[in-house]
């Protein structure tokens, strides 16, 4: 009964391709996030959704498009993949969006490698 699950765990693809990563949480949380962790291990927020509404949209190329069909799911679609997109992408969730300091619950990441 994994709390935050991401698929796939590994994704190896060629430059220029389009790919999607899926995330689901069964914690009943209202807010979900996508983070990118680069080779230097910095974890940077990309997007956040609350009840299917986009609330955080950092400076991310518009090749990255999040989509939340319902509050338990947040998917990430990436168009025209570039070498610099190689990283580990983490999905996370937290109970609510009002700026409260709730812990975030992370999935185990999707390691994206661009050839």
């Amino acid at each position, binding site marked *: 009964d994994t709390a935050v699950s991401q698929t796939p765990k590994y994704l190896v693809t060629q430059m220029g391709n389009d790919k999607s990563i899926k995330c689901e949480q069964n914690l009943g949380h209202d807010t979900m996030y996508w983070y990118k962790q680069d080779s230097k291990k*910095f974890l*940077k927020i990309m997007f956040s959704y*609350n009840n299917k509404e986009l609330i955080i949209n950092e400076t991310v190329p518009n090749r990255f498009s999040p989509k939340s069909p319902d509050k338990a799911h947040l998917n990430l679609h990436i168009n025209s993949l570039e070498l610099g997109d190689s990283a580990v992408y983490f999905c996370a969730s937290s109970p609510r969006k009002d700026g409260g*300091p709730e812990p*975030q619950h992370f*999935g185990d990441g999707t390691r994206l490698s661009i050839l």
Partner: protein
Amino acid sequence: SQKIEQNSEALNIQEGKTATLTCNYTNYSPAYLQWYRQDPGRGPVFLLLIRENEKEKRKERLKVTFDTTLKQSLFHITASQPADSATYLCALGRRSSASKIIFGSGTRLSIRP
């Protein structure tokens, strides 16, 4: 620009000793600070939260301090064990940032038997 620095990339200590990790920040006024543990190939796991009006928090062998004057948090693991070996991340959040938190780059802690 906002900056969060964790004291070193790696810290090696002997089992049984106290491990102390540092998180310093500049150009930021956090309302709270969180510490997470990350094991290789896994996502971060929440450990402790401390708010700006709190000086210290404890949980079992873990202790966190928060000094808003020094702009620093210290994370202590007492009676350290090899199983405590992991990367530890600090993360800062503001009151009105819609749950956005900013992470430091982490400190890799190794406890040798």
